[in-house]
């Protein structure tokens, strides 16, 4: 190994020409996405009625958000509409502090913002949305939250829900870690002694560290 020239730091072509980049400027691809019957009904109900609708699988009973034409596990069409939420439990969150380009606009996103994953009461899958709380230490998985609908006229999009708010004084519901199936795999935890590979010497490690420090 190491037979090859490392050209990472080169600043010109091999014969000294300037290396160029081509800047595209804003490239815009426009789409007219058909929402199909399931997402159309979902978005319309959110906009017109201030309701969040899920669909229930007739076989396994899973209630899906967003609604969809097929339950993956059962490969059948969910055939029952159910209203879920507007309250639910926080299942995940992230406070985004580093801006990136918003693919909707080509401009940098406004940060910070908090993205949340909510399991709405009555639903089995999570809805992704926003929250005004920017301090992650004030948030905890399992907290109850509530959808706040946007003022009318509401847009035909998930922004018909303006955000989710933490329900003050709500009781945190712990997430259970489901037990694992029995498997024919041995999982013995090694001790410090048995964890070491036979014949592996600490010497090499020290040598490496020394070399690393030199750099």
């Amino acid at each position, binding site marked *: *190994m*190491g037979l*090859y020239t*490392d050209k*990472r730091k*080169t*600043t010109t*072509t091999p014969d000294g020409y300037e*290396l160029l980049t081509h800047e595209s400027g804003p490239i815009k691809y426009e789409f007219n*996405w058909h929402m199909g019957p399931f*997402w159309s009904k979902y*978005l319309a109900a959110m906009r017109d009625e201030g309701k969040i609708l899920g669909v229930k699988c007739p076989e396994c009973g899973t209630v*899906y958000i*967003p609604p969809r034409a097929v339950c*993956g596990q059962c490969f059948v069409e969910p055939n029952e509409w159910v209203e879920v939420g507007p309250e639910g439990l926080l*299942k*995940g*969150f*992230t*406070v*985004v502090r*580093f801006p*990136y*380009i*918003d*693919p*909707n606009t080509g401009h940098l996103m406004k940060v910070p913002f908090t*993205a*949340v*994953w909510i399991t709405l009461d009555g639903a089995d*899958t*999570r*809805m*992704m*949305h*926003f929250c005004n709380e920017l301090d*992650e230490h004030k948030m905890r*998985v399992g907290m109850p939250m509530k959808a706040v609908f946007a003022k009318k006229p509401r847009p035909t999009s*998930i*922004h018909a829900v303006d955000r989710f708010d933490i329900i003050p004084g709500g009781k945190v519901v712990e*997430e*259970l*870690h489901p037990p*694992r199936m029995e*498997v*024919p*795999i*041995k*999982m*013995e*935890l*090694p001790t410090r002694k048995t*964890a*070491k*590979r036979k*014949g*592996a010497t600490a010497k090499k*490690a020290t040598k*490496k560290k020394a070399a690393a420090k030199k*750099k």
Partner: protein
Amino acid sequence: MGKRVGIVGVGQTHHASQRLDCSGVELIAEAVTRALDDAEVTLDDIDAIVIGNMDHFENINYVDTWATDGLGSCMKPVFKVTTGGTTGTTVAACAYYHAASGLFDTVMAVGWEKNSESDTQAAIATCANPVLERDPFAGAIGPLATEYSMYMEAYGATEEDSAIVAARDRNNAMNNIYAHNRMHVTVEDVLNSPMLSYPVKFLDMCPRSDGACAVIFASEEKAKKLVPKPAWVHASVVRHDYTHFGDLAWQWMPTLEMATLEAYKIAGITNPLKEFDVAELYLPCSTCGVKWMDSFYFCERGQAPKLIRSGATHMDGIMPINPSGGVIACNPIGATALLRVGEAAWQIMGKSGDRQIPNVKRTLSTGFGGCSWSDVMILGADLP
């Protein structure tokens, strides 16, 4: 029944945050040339080619046709496969099936990405449902941060545990001349690095890189003719279940567990820590290097911190993880998972240079990406 297949050559570029000297096609050519050299073959020996990357990182449609000059695919069979983060293992699996099917003898898998050409996070944001999930989808880091904070609460894992993994992989990268990020860091350095999204810090997280990797697969008869010590494919398994990001449960990794178990079954693995000599795992973040130890069935649920602290996964341990430095040292996304396969193959072939683990008989490589897409490939020194 299909043919047995071995890896006979691996090539990779020198990876960097930006390879200004190389266009995408030149980057591919660098990896392809090195793989051909490594296998001591010429392009004439290659019967078919598979390529993969993610379209929106470079904005190129039909990459299989565009990359012809670098791939050397003019007047050769070629097509493209792509599955997001797992593209690398997807390409590897596809090349494996090419050769195993008996339709082609020698097949080259190529994964590449030129992440410097766009805002990686913006491109990743477009993988969420554009209407229902794109706006609040803040990239990979949110789910990873959440799953680890839940794991910490449930099992008492700490930020230090993941920092140990970060320090392990980053220091391993010191032995890998190709890696993008090569720096000596301590556990304290990791803990003191800027917080990205609690509990994930800057040095816990993977970078984005420019790079390419090419791996040559050959059918049994051909592989034996070409090289003294092919790395034989023992199992290749993929699982992917979910359609929306909100479908994912983060307490555990169902697809990773399913794929791992199936691969272990095919390869006859019953005690992974003892039976694997090296693992090259797609760990996009050091926290995954803790939590996912459960999912790979290296330990019982919740025991990962103890496993990490035992040293078993360090360079002098019984099953070193990521001698190459792994994903947090180098992440050319479409090539990342293929590098896992290529690095594992080199370990078996004894070509890993400063990062070589002696006498490697069996390795585990994985890919991770998309909406919890999980790929597992097991390689061995002996025929399966």
